[in-house]
């Protein structure tokens, strides 16, 4: 719970033809995090083609599902095997055939839709041409010296096309616009018709076929248009039937294909990290928890009956940066994990801060927002919104409960301080004590973070930093000495001389370490050492004072309630209670929100930044459904 589980790096070697089943077994096993394979002797990538086929098949499957709808929930049989490469390629080809059929239907439907829109435009056009009293039969006669085109093009290109066509003696006459399409008549010398063909194609010109019927009597044209519309409707219905037929015909097999693709996914996903091999041999690399090794062997024995070779070793110092962190948390602690992960993931071997975070965060929140009534409201709200907030609701419930607890200690109920007598102290009546406790808590917290950091550095093999750096034991010695000196100056204890000595030893050690670490010329080295040593003192001082906000907010809470009572007391009965209710809502929403953020800020900046690099890699196991991150 306080640090990541010890892991083994494993290398599973097997026949390349069984690699998909090995990956499937590892996915079913559930605690294998794939990693890149780095065996120089196994330079080939036997799963690359498998992954490629799977990606193609998966893309086609997604498109088909989008078009045909879901085929139902996925159930993967326990004893099902992963498809071989040949099976997967066959499946991919079948999916391609189905998709091409669907695409043809889809495309045909889109074209019918297009034609229908065009027909409607044609009808409108006919109306306009009728009003223009143009003899279309005469205008469009084939033997004429004048070549006439009627059609449409995108409105944005009209000006350019008009200019370009003017170079060939053609005129463009626009007579209508429907949406982004402009309808126009293009007329020019028939001899130069060839010259404009390429230009019109490039410009997205769409010729409007004017049938013979349209060239004669307007009534006959209307009849033709109606017939054409009926034909398109019938055609559209037929295409829908084809698509429905495809769904019926392919539906069950499509579901089976989904199952097979899901079974093939583990190897395809592992191949992304890197499956290496040579000849008929393949190797899968990754990380598993140390305590699961025997269970893994049993799983592999049951499946492969000894046709495999499993190597394992502890992470080497070269590998340590890439080892993923797997930390198991008890259920009650899990709601706090996202709050820590939003800062970062602990490195393998680093102290995991979730438990101290949970305790300290709740303590800080309660201390800054101690009120039985307000805490109860937060608790009830979080419980009510449990379905919506999910696991995070527990953070709200716990914060509310701790707020209530501190409310009892402070003797505060919805800001009233005379209902309950304080079990411990009332912040407003004893502010100096509250400030002293807050700073004392801060000192304890900073000492804890310095110890954790020294431990982390020690585990990572950075012994010198653990001992002599400003965030290591030397920093701790200096800090304790400085705190002792301040306490002595304030008259709290008589340890001035010893504390001064301790602080002196600490700061000199830090300065010497900084001097040795700085790789620069003499002047720069002096400057760096002086500034960094000074910064150590200032930072620790500022970080400690930062905890005074805990006291400030607890005082603020009472002061805000007092302000509301003062306002309410100046009003009549209705106004009084209205102000009290509204004021309490403001306190809960506004101050509650600020306190929640301040507590988080204290944890992140005064705590985590001191010992928690947050640049670790999360353990992402290969699973049967879902995937491994790229």
């Amino acid at each position, binding site marked *: 719970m306080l640090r990541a589980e010890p892991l083994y790096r494993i290398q599973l070697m097997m026949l390349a033809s069984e690699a998909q089943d090995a990956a499937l077994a590892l996915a079913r096993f559930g605690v294998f995090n794939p990693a890149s394979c780095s065996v120089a002797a196994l330079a080939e990538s036997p799963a*690359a083609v498998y992954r*490629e086929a799977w*990606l*193609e098949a998966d*893309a*086609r499957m997604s498109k088909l599902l989008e078009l045909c709808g879901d085929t139902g929930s996925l159930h993967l049989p326990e004893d099902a095997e992963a498809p071989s490469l040949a099976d997967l390629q066959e499946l991919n080809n079948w999916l*391609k055939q189905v*998709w*091409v059929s669907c*695409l043809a239907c889809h*495309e045909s439907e889109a074209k019918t839709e297009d034609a229908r829109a065009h027909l409607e435009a044609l009808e409108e056009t006919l109306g306009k041409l009728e009003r223009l009293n143009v003899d279309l039969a005469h205008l469009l006669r084939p033997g004429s010296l004048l070549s006439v085109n009627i059609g449409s093009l*995108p409105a*944005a*290109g009209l000006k*350019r*096309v008009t*200019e*370009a*066509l*003017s*170079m*060939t003696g053609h005129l463009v006459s626009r007579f209508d616009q429907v949406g982004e399409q402009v309808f126009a008549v293009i007329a020019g010398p028939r001899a130069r018709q060839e*010259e*404009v063909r*390429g*230009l019109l*194609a*490039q*410009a*997205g010109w*769409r010729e409007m076929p004017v049938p013979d019927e349209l060239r004669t009597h307007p009534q006959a044209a209307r009849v033709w248009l109606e017939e054409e519309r009926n034909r398109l409707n019938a055609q559209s219905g037929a295409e829908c039937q084809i698509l429905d037929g495809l769904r019926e015909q392919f539906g069950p097999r499509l579901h089976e294909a989904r199952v097979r693709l899901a079974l093939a996914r583990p190897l395809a996903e592992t191949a992304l990290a890197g499956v290496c091999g040579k000849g008929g041999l393949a190797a899968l690399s990754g990380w598993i928890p140390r305590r699961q090794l025997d269970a893994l062997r049993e799983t592999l024995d049951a499946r492969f009956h000894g046709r495999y070779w499993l190597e394992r070793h502890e992470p080497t110092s070269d590998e340590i940066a890439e080892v993923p962190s797997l930390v198991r948390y008890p259920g009650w602690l899990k709601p706090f994990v996202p709050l820590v992960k939003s800062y970062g993931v602990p490195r393998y071997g680093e102290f995991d801060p979730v438990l101290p975070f949970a305790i300290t965060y709740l303590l800080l929140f309660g201390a800054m927002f101690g009120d039985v009534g307000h805490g109860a409201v937060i608790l009830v709200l979080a419980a009510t919104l449990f379905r919506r907030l999910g696991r995070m609701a527990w953070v709200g419930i716990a914060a509310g409960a701790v707020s209530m607890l501190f409310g009892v200690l402070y003797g505060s109920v919805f800001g009233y301080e005379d209902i309950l007598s304080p079990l411990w102290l009332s912040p407003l009546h004893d502010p100096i004590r509250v400030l002293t406790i807050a700073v004392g808590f801060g000192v304890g917290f900073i000492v804890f973070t310095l110890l954790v950091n020294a431990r982390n550095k020690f585990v990572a093999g950075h012994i010198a930093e653990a001992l002599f750096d400003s965030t290591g034991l030397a920093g701790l010695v200096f800090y304790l000495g400085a705190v002792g000196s301040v306490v002595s100056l304030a008259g709290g204890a008589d340890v001035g001389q010893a504390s001064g000595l301790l602080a002196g030893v600490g700061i000199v050690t830090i300065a010497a370490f900084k001097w040795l670490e700085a790789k620069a010329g003499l002047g720069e080295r002096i400057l760096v050492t002086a500034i960094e040593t000074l910064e150590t003192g200032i930072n620790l001082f500022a970080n400690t004072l930062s905890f005074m906000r805990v006291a400030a907010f607890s005082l603020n809470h009472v002061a805000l309630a007092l302000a509301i009572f003062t306002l309410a007391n100046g009003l009549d009965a209705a106004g009084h209670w209205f102000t009290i209710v509204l004021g309490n809502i403001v306190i809960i929403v506004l101050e509650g929100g600020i306190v929640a953020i301040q507590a988080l800020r204290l944890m992140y900046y005064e705590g985590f930044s001191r010992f928690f690099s947050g640049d670790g890699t999360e353990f992402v196991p290969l699973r049967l459904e879902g995937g491994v991150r790229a």
Partner: protein
Amino acid sequence: MSAYLNTRVSLFSSQLWLDGELDSLISVPDDAVADALTRRGLPQLAAGFGGLTAPNQDSRSLEQRIIAQVLDETRVMIRPLSGDARTFLSFWTARFEISNVKTLLRSKMTGERPAAVLARLIPMGAFGRLDNQDLAHAEDVGELLRRLEAGPYAGVVRNVRRAFEESRDPFNLDAALDRGYYESLTLRALPVEKAVGASFRNLMANLIDRINLVWLLRYRFNYKLPPAQVYYLLVGSRYSLPGTRLRELAALDSLEAVLAALPATWQTRLSGVTDIPGVFARMEHIAAEQALRVLRSNAPGIARAFAYLILRERDLRAVRAVLRGRHLGLAEADIRLAVQRTPAEVA
């Protein structure tokens, strides 16, 4: 913010290669290439050139590394920008993504494997707006174009599908994409020109006029397209060569006639040029001189940043030529000829 950008541009501009310095890259020993590249702020290129005999060195990865370098520097310069200037500079990087679109379209025409084409695409990093995985797995050109039409480049791809359906000619696709891109770029440049003034406008003018003249010559005399189609394929321009002038030029029958019909200042600039590559080289040289003037002036930050990017890309093209030449074992004199950036007539 402008102080940040100006400082950044000034720092970056110290990394540009003068002609003589580029020459030294040609003659430097193999094991000193990485060092020379690092000194010029090209760590992405240096990383791949630990030794020129490294087996993993190939021209494609070099291309990708060069573009990664440009994108990295653009990302730094774009940081303090907002509004139209930011939109413009972001869209300037979209050329690389349009090039990816072309690669994807060609791969669909040739039936190339998605995995193979994905490996050839330029990684756009934070500037990427397309889902390459999704596009690479489109079944054919039609499906790919429909997907593109629903994406961020709908404006650029508009008409492309219909043009392709009409002709099935890959040239139509490329020409329509290029034109669509530069039309969109000039639209995005307009508000910046208004806000910044002559320094930025001159850079855009040099760019668009060069593109239009070179395309006009290529389409007209290499591809033998009719004048009207040539004019249609050019970028709508509001600079030195406006539409009326371009129509006149497109109607002419020879390279010489086109050059003779150019404005007097252009004729002086292009004197002695006899072929299309010569026109391109001379105009690029003029554009680079203009960019250098803007870079060294106290022009607004966005103009200096744009000028820097123009010069940097020109530099990197030359560096790529040198590295490829070295890799292929070409003679130093041949490499020098290939990367000659100052046309002989100007020098």
